[in-house]
């Protein structure tokens, strides 16, 4: 029979390490305390499992094929928003990334300000900015693109700055030693070295922005999000199924492409 006395952990005193125990106990404590706040109710959860299954079952109806043209148009809009916003963000983050990199910035104060600015730009989720921009410029894809671009600059600027900070300084010194000017050093020594990392970042961000763009329509900022919510509210499950499928396919396709491209870049562009 297994008795407590014959088992032990591989530590000097036989008990699990203190930091681990402390961490787990703290986490469990916090979860216990916040359970009522989140209205975690396992009974309700398992009870509604049946309801969820029923709901899921309702989704599998004959799709509303007549909706497909509009669906495709909206999906195209979503993709276009993603691409445009990311492109704008790239153009803006390149110079900002330089300013926010400790080895490329012209002045420590500029570095600090840019870093904080980027931090603020990425702090709020895209949807919040979309809400604000819709309120400012009206409905349509424009506020969506603005919101996406804005937040993306926050992330890309930071990633890019970090890539620049880890470039090989010997190469930089080499270019500088030949009398290159301030801008030339950055353009010809720092940027090219940081570029491969940056491409990987762009892939990841495109991936993320695609998902974000799909829901911005929720607040009227363009894309498939609006149709998504409306079809839920109006119980149009024949459309909902198509929308969910379209989003799933688009996101997965982009995901695979980005994985594939990223591994090709890591293993050399001509591999």
């Amino acid at each position: 029979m297994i008795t407590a006395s014959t088992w032990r952990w591989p530590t000097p005193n036989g008990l699990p390490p203190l930091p681990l125990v402390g961490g787990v106990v703290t986490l469990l404590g916090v979860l216990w305390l916040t359970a009522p706040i989140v209205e975690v109710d396992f009974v309700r959860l398992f009870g509604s499992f049946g309801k969820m299954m029923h709901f899921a079952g309702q989704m599998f109806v004959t799709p509303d094929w007549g909706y497909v043209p509009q669906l495709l148009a909206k999906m195209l809009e979503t993709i276009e928003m993603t691409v445009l916003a990311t492109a704008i963000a790239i153009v803006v983050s390149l110079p900002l990334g330089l300013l926010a990199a400790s080895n490329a910035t012209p002045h420590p104060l500029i570095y600090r300000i840019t870093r904080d600015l980027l931090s603020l730009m990425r702090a709020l989720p895209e949807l919040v900015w979309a809400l604000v921009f819709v309120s400012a410029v009206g409905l349509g894809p424009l506020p969506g693109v603005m919101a996406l671009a804005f937040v993306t600059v926050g992330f890309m600027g930071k990633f890019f700055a970090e890539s620049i900070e880890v470039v090989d300084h010997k190469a930089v010194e080499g270019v500088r030693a030949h009398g290159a000017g301030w801008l030339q050093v950055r353009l010809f020594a720092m940027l090219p070295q940081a570029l491969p990392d940056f491409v990987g970042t762009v892939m990841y961000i495109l991936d993320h922005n695609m998902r974000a763009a799909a829901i911005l329509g929720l607040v009227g900022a363009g894309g498939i999000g609006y149709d998504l919510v409306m079809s839920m509210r109006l119980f149009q499950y024949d459309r909902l199924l198509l929308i969910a499928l379209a989003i799933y396919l688009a996101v997965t396709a982009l995901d695979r492409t980005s994985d594939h491209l990223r591994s090709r870049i890591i293993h050399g562009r001509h591999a």
Partner: protein
Amino acid sequence: MNAQPLKAALPEQLPPKPRNPMPVWIAATLAMLWLIVWDLEISFETLAYGVEDMAEYFGRYGQPDFTNLSRYLALMGITLATALWGTVFALLVAFFLAPLAARNFSPNAVAYRIARETLNFMRAMPDLLLALLFVAALGLGPMPGALALGVHTAGFLGKFFAESLERVDRGVCEGVASTGANFPQMVMYAGWPSILREALGYVLYILDRNVRMASVLGLVGAGGIGLALHDTLRLFDYGQSAALILVILATILMIDYASAWLRRRLG
């Protein structure tokens, strides 16, 4: 003319320069972007004219109205708790799925494929969509939001974990395998200890991300502060909106700092 002997004295010509595809790519990209702008009917002119309007618009946020602060803080608390529960759920699911989705640990090809596809599926569904579904099934409140966050980020966490596991040194895996360890033992001894630091980094990143998402889930009735912001904006109450945005901003920045600090301490 005696150009011939001179030519013969020159070093061999360089091979013809390979055609540089870059300008073509750049031109194609610019063309595509132009098409997109046209198709989305975005008018940069109205945007430019509207800059002045926008400056005035953003000025309205200049006087945050903190009269409802305590209520907002409470809502933020719910949001944070929702994010925490979502992350813990994601961690549990990812903990069990990730080893199955790692090619070097997975016991067989079928399990690997199923685990990988499940994680991909969980990731592909936007959490807002999941939140909508869960609210429809479970009613309003933060729990469906936490569940939606949990399911969606389980997909991300699982993929990150699986990729880390696949990078574990093959020798270390063989070392443990050579003692006759089975799948769960391999995972616990060669897998998790080898990626512990990375794994914790991912969890913190996901927690961070979930706090942001949780703050907008309220828009679909999944509890938290998002709904309040939607309402105040709809009522054109810029003072309150500004206050709400500041509360959200401050919270997210604090979580950012905390998670960066934690990551440094573990690193």
